């Protein structure tokens, strides 16, 4: 190639590259936390209270629900003492949804449980998640920026987050508020499964703060 044409050609290629890069960046999803609605759910591997390992990406092709849990939190107790959470777990796992209860409390903090303690709790509460994942170092919690318990995330079979937020529209600790509440998890699953737009894709999660290890006092 003649030297006189080399430089313009390089410049041309650089410009082309730059344009392509710019286009790709513009087309990419907005730069928000990876665990947000519309973005691909960050992959993780968790160890269940049964000792078995679960990897999120193994569940491509299925809907997945993530449920942040702290058995001492009155907002969580509202859902469990009313039997509501267990009923949701049973209802949706029967429809092929994978349901993961996640415990992100650090050791010594409210909501932390050993494998045995969690298995006892699941049995006592007649809970029916696919698995309860023990996340005492808060890795999965931080990956999803889980702020409260309960906090619910729904992921579609393509691995995209379609819901992130509160369990329902009654942000109280009162058991009496469960029956009349609109359950956002069920709503998201029903709508997505029917091929419809998820009406309420993100709501303010309500509950107790997740008791991570690095919480300052």
């Amino acid at each position, binding site marked *: 190639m003649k030297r006189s044409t080399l430089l313009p050609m390089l410049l041309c290629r650089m410009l082309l590259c730059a344009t392509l890069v710019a286009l790709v960046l513009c087309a990419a999803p907005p730069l928000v936390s990876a665990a947000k609605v519309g973005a691909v759910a960050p992959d993780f591997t968790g160890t269940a209270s049964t000792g078995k390992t679960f990897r999120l990406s193994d569940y491509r092709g299925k809907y997945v629900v993530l449920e942040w849990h702290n058995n001492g*939190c009155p907002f969580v107790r509202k859902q469990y003492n009313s039997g509501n959470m267990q009923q949701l777990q049973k209802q949706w796992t029967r429809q092929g949804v994978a349901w993961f209860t996640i415990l992100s409390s650090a050791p010594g903090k409210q909501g932390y449980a050993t494998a045995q303690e969690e298995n006892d709790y699941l049995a006592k509460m007649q809970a029916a998640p696919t698995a309860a994942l023990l996340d005492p170092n808060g890795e999965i919690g931080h990956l999803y920026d889980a702020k409260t318990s309960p906090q619910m995330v729904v992921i579609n079979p393509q691995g995209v987050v379609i819901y992130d937020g509160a369990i329902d529209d009654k942000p109280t*600790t009162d058991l009496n508020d469960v029956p009349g509440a609109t359950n956002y998890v069920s709503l998201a699953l029903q709508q997505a499964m029917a091929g419809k737009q998820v009406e309420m894709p993100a709501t303010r999660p309500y509950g107790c*703060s997740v008791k991570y290890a690095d919480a300052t006092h």
Partner: protein
Amino acid sequence: MQRRSPSSWFYRTLTFGPALLLCAANAHAEATPITHGSLELIARNQWIAAGHTLDLGLRFQLEKGWHIYWVNPGDSGEPPRVEWQLPAGLTAGAIEWPAPRRLDTGSIVDYGYEDRVLLIVPLQAAPTLAAQQPVRLGAQVKLLVCSHEMCIPGKAELSLTLPIKSQPPAPDTLTAELFAATSKSLPRPAPGNWKFSVTDANDSFVLTANVGHQVTQAVFFPLAESQIENAAPQKLVTEKADFRLTLRKSDQLLKPIDRLKGVLVLSGDQAFLVDVPISKAGAVRSNSGNGATK
């Protein structure tokens, strides 16, 4: 220890007993214990004056390390809720919320109160109310008291007995100072000559304010949930007479909003109600905080 004669105890009771009863009958009831604190229903004045508004107050005292929440609790928690049981002719208004504090646990930020707070509730008395013997005002308060470690829900049944008179109101000297201090510190509309604007800067709202003097501290508390990212630091840039406060948008803010409403707290705990339209352009408008609703 020298034994006192039974008759001297008798006379003490006779003297102090009625005084104690009198104390109970005025606008200063006893505090009810609540989880990690106490709660009391008090009144600014000695009686309910027909045709006037009487400030009632929910007086919270909390143990160190425990807090309750503001109307917008922030990332977690729940504000106290009151249900009133009132005789006919009396109507309770909404809680007048003092400016909250930022309760920071690192990954989340809540808005609330520690130590002690008085939540004022105005009580309107119909002008047609007849003067009568003391009436009972009842309040059922649902509350959530939290520490960094845990939250404990609770309920308190409060009551206060006050006479209704046709005479103009007279302050209760026992509660006057507390009500005055609280009223003084309530968020108020910003001065008319202050100018505010809010621009939508994609992932943040930028609040620009011209307040005529240099500001060293500014914190914004949104009245509505899910508008700003509570845990994000609020970057403050100050100039001589104005400042800019950058407020990161909440991940739950999916639809555009027209206005930003909330409480702006400047140095010295000066709290102002702001209600500013949001624009794309950076034009500074005159203060629209006048007449802002609480």
